[in-house]
Every structure is written in C-alpha cells, then in structure tokens.
C-alpha cells in the first residue's frame, strides 16, 4: 500500500471500480424487474473459480480466462433464470430474498466442497505485477489495469444504452415496465438478456477480484454486503449511481482501514445507513 493520501485515493478508487463491475448488473436488473437477487455474488464467485481453475489447473493465460469467466457466469445465470427465478417474478420480496439466500448457501457449500476453504492462489502474468512510477508516485500495475478495464466497461455500457436499440429498450423497461410492454417491447426477453449480461459482468468481477480482494468459498456472502450497499446507495437501475456509489464505498473503505483501523467496517455501515436515511431510493434512484 502506498503511504499517502493520494495512494489511498488511488487504491480506493481501484477497489471501487472492482465493486462497480461486481454491482452494476444487479443494479440494472433490480431497477428493471424489482427482483431481489441476493445470489448475484454467487455468479461472481463462479467466475472467479473458473479463472482459478483455468489458470492454475490448465495453465491458461490470465487474460484469456477473463472472457470465459464472463461467459460461464452468464450462461449459468440463464439456466437459473429459466428454471428458478422466472417463477418468482411476481412473488413477495421476502420469498425472493429467501430463495436467493438459499442459493447463496448452496453455492458456498459447493465451493467449499470442490475447492476447500482456503484462499485461492492466483499466478498473475509478469506484466500485470509490480508497480510503475508516474510523476513521482508509485501506481500498482494491476490496479491500473483494473481501473482501465472498468472504465472501458462503463463506456461500452453507457454507449450501448444511449445509442443502440436494445439499450433504448432497456432504458424504457427500467423507467416504466408497464408502458414498455404496452409499446410492444418484449420486456421478458430484454430482462433475460440484461440479467445474463449483468451476471456475466459479476463473473468477470469475481475473476478480477482474486488479486485484490482474494477468493474463497465464502466470497458469495462476504461481497454480497458490499454489492448491496453499492446498489442501494447508488439507486436502482442507475449505472451512474452505481459508479459513484462504488467509488465512494471503495475510497471510504480504504480510508477507513488506513486511517482508523480500530473502527474496521464500522465506518462503511454507518455511512450506508446515514446515506439511505437521507436518500432511501439511493443517490440516483427513481423508485
């Protein structure tokens, strides 16, 4: 860790970008269908374990494993959506919470069974290790990579939303589902595709997280809380909100750990509760 306020900002922002990639899918799908998918981080965990298996087990290069992590999480999420989630779109919030918590429990148990309970090691390629010096400050290369990837993803998402027909359909469905259906938009298909993309991004986030946050069998649980904080503080259905909330959370968490280590996670939870009380719908939420 770089010992300066700027360093904390940089590291915090990088961490925030990771949280953004992990959370953005959940924010959009929650905003669209109001389906509370607490198993979102199970898909992230899946992506992480896919990467670990490919790189450690099969010797794949790290970068090549990333698209596979994305794709496998997306595919598995499609299966879940078809078989389980679809039945509960109209169900109560409690039922949705319970079903998806059940899935988290199962996924954590399965992960422990297959991979054990240790932290998964990862061999980063040499060009992603170490740090580089710019203007006298030292920047971790992996963190730069992480920020770069996240910004590219953000740009692609925003561009797709603004300039493609599918993006317009997504925006309409998030804004007013009933009216979107009335306009002839196949909301169910839009949702299924968005859900797959969002879960895929979570899988990618899980793969990217290994180096920074570590990966173990309990990842689906541990990071669920952070993701929920980002989503509820940022506002449902808002990419910009998720970006801002994730950045805020990442930086506060780093700052808290660096400057007030005795407080632990206290600061994060306190900020979340306070922010939610001020803006219950999130910073950019509509509903």
């Amino acid at each position: 860790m770089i010992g300066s306020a700027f360093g904390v900002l940089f590291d915090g922002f990088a961490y925030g970008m990771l949280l953004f990639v992990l959370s953005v899918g959940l924010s959009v799908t929650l905003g669209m269908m109001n389906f509370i998918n607490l198993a979102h981080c199970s898909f992230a965990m899946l992506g992480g374990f896919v990467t670990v298996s490919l790189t450690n087990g099969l010797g794949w290069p790290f970068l090549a494993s990333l698209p596979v992590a994305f794709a496998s999480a997306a595919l598995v999420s499609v299966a879940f959506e078809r078989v389980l989630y679809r039945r509960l779109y109209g169900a109560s919030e409690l039922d949705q919470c319970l079903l998806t918590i059940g899935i988290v429990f199962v996924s954590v148990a399965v992960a422990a069974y297959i991979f054990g309970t240790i932290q998964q090691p990862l061999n980063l390629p040499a060009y992603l290790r170490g740090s580089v010096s710019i203007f006298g400050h030292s920047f971790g290369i992996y963190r730069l990579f992480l920020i770069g990837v996240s910004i590219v993803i953000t740009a692609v998402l925003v561009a797709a939303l603004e300039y493609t027909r599918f993006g317009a359909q997504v925006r309409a469905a998030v804004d007013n589902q009933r009216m979107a259906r009335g306009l002839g938009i196949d909301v169910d298909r839009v949702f299924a595709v968005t859900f797959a993309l969002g879960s895929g991004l979570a899988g990618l986030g899980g793969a990217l997280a290994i180096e920074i946050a570590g990966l173990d069998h309990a990842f689906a649980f541990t990071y669920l809380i952070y993701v929920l904080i980002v989503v509820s503080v940022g506002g449902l259905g808002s990419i910009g909100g998720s970006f801002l909330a994730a950045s805020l959370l990442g930086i506060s968490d780093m700052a808290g750990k660096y400057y007030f280590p005795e407080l632990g996670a206290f600061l994060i939870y306190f900020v979340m509760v306070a922010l939610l009380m001020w803006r219950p719908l999130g910073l950019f939420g509509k509903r």
Partner: protein
Amino acid sequence: MASSTLSEPQRHLEAQIRWRPLEIAFWLATLLPFVLTPNHLALASQIAITALFALSLDLILGYAGIISLGHAAYFGFGSYTAGLIAKWGWGEPLTGLLIAAAAAGALGYVTSFIIARFRHLALIMITLGLGLLLAEAANSAGWLTGGADGLQGVRMWKLLGLFQFDLYGTAAYTYSLVVLFLGFLLARRLINSPFGLALRGIRENAVRMPAIGAPSPAHIRKVYTIAAVMAGIAGALLAQTTETVSLDTLSFQRSADVLVILILGGAGRLYGGIVGAIIYMVARDQFSGINPQYWYFWIGTLLIAVVLFLPNGILGGMARLVRLERRPA
C-alpha cells in the same frame, strides 16, 4: 365471557381465537422432556430460547410484514446486558432478565423510529446495516464484550434462591420454558387484539392503512419495540443459562438463522417459530458431527424447496392438508 351475550359476528371472531385442544396438548407435551429425555434438557433449553427469539421475529415479520435481516441485534444486546450485569456482581437471574429486557427494548424503541420510515429494499438494507453496525461495535469494544473470546466471568446465582444452573439443564429448561410460555401468552394476546388486527392490516396492504385513518408508523414502532424486548429476553436467557456470551449472538449469521427457522415453521401462524426451532435445533444437534459446509448445503436446499413448494412453511402446508381433507364433508 358468556357466549349467550355475544352476537353472531362476535361469536365468529371469538371462535377464531379460542384455545384449540391441539394447542393445549402441545404445551403439555413440552413437559415431556423432563421425563423422556432427561439427559437432553440443555438442548431443550436452547430450543425454548430459540423459539422465543423466532416468536419475536414473527411479530414483526409474520404479522406486520417487516423484513428484518438484523433482528439478532436485540438478541445479542439482551445477551450482553444480562451477561455484563452478572459479571459485574449481580447474578440474580430474574432481575437481570428484566434489566436486559428493558435495555433491548430501549434500543428497539430508538431504532424503531428509523425502521418505521422506510419500506422495501431500503428497509431491508437498513435493518442489515444496523445489525452489522452493532456487531462491528461489539467486536471493536473488546474491553467491554471480551471480543472474539466472548464474555468471561459470568456467574449466576440460584434461580429463586433454590435452583442452580448446571450442566444437566433442569433449572435451565424450567426457566426457559416458563419464560417462553409467558412470552407466548403475551404474543397470543397481542395478535388477537385490535392492535394485532392493525398489524395484519399493515402486512396485507400498507397503502390502504392511511386511507382508513391508521397511524401505521406508530403501530410499527410499538410492535418493533415489543419484539425487541422479547428478543432481548431470549438473549438474556441464553447468557444466563449458559453463563457465557459470544459475538455470534449479534451476528448476521444468527439473524439469517432465525429467519430460516421462522420461514421453515411458517410465519404469521404464532406457532411457526416454535415448530421451526424444534426441527432446526434437533436436526442441527443430530448432524452436529457433520462438516458445517454440508449443513449449509442442506439448509440452502431446504430454503429453496420451502419457497417453491411450501410457501407458508410447515404449518401452512399442514393447514392446507387439513383444508383439503375437510372438503368432501
């Protein structure tokens, strides 16, 4: 109340809340462990405590419709209060229980003002956040709570000056069972009162309540405080009967566990928490040798199955069976 002086609608309402023979049989059956399983009274005591905790959650979740992912906060707060009082020299159980109840109630009352203002995801997140906050605070305040090692030096005096809490659990189970029963009577009274009806109204349609002049926030604050008191009492019982308090009494794990227990038994049916507690705790005791991972695999699967196939829990499923059987008649 003599039936002859009641009108027809009153009689109908009264018939709905009358004590059923099955209920009386159930409460008599809770005495069986003294005779049938005298070596497992410590476990029976744990079940009674968990049942009381689940009952307190039922008041806010099953009857008022408030989803809380942080209810263990009041359980743990009551637990630590009771433990600390004993540690600091006052080991009398009953007064310690009352003080812990008051403390948990005060915490519940204060937080109820926040809880009553929010709904949906914001409410779920806030209950989660408040629970995590308290758990973190307890973790950090190791000088007070003993941190990860738990509270040491909790020594209880004899209950009513006669009965010592020991490894056999006789005094513990008697104590827990009596407190559970009293708590149950209170919950039953509450549910069958006009206030209970108002809570069910909030659960059934929160939008309609203001339109009939109901002050929903005030109702929610009241039931939330009562539920906090009850959870605090359960926590205090745990501290007193086991003479120890650990951080997991405040943990998210415990909040999630009690939620699972209540849903398993069936929320909004008064007995759901008790039934769920019995099944869960007995199963956990039976499978305690197993790797904890396997345990959570089965709990997760069970939860999924309950949501998909048994949405009103075990009691709900049984009620449906009974209704199906009655139909031909």
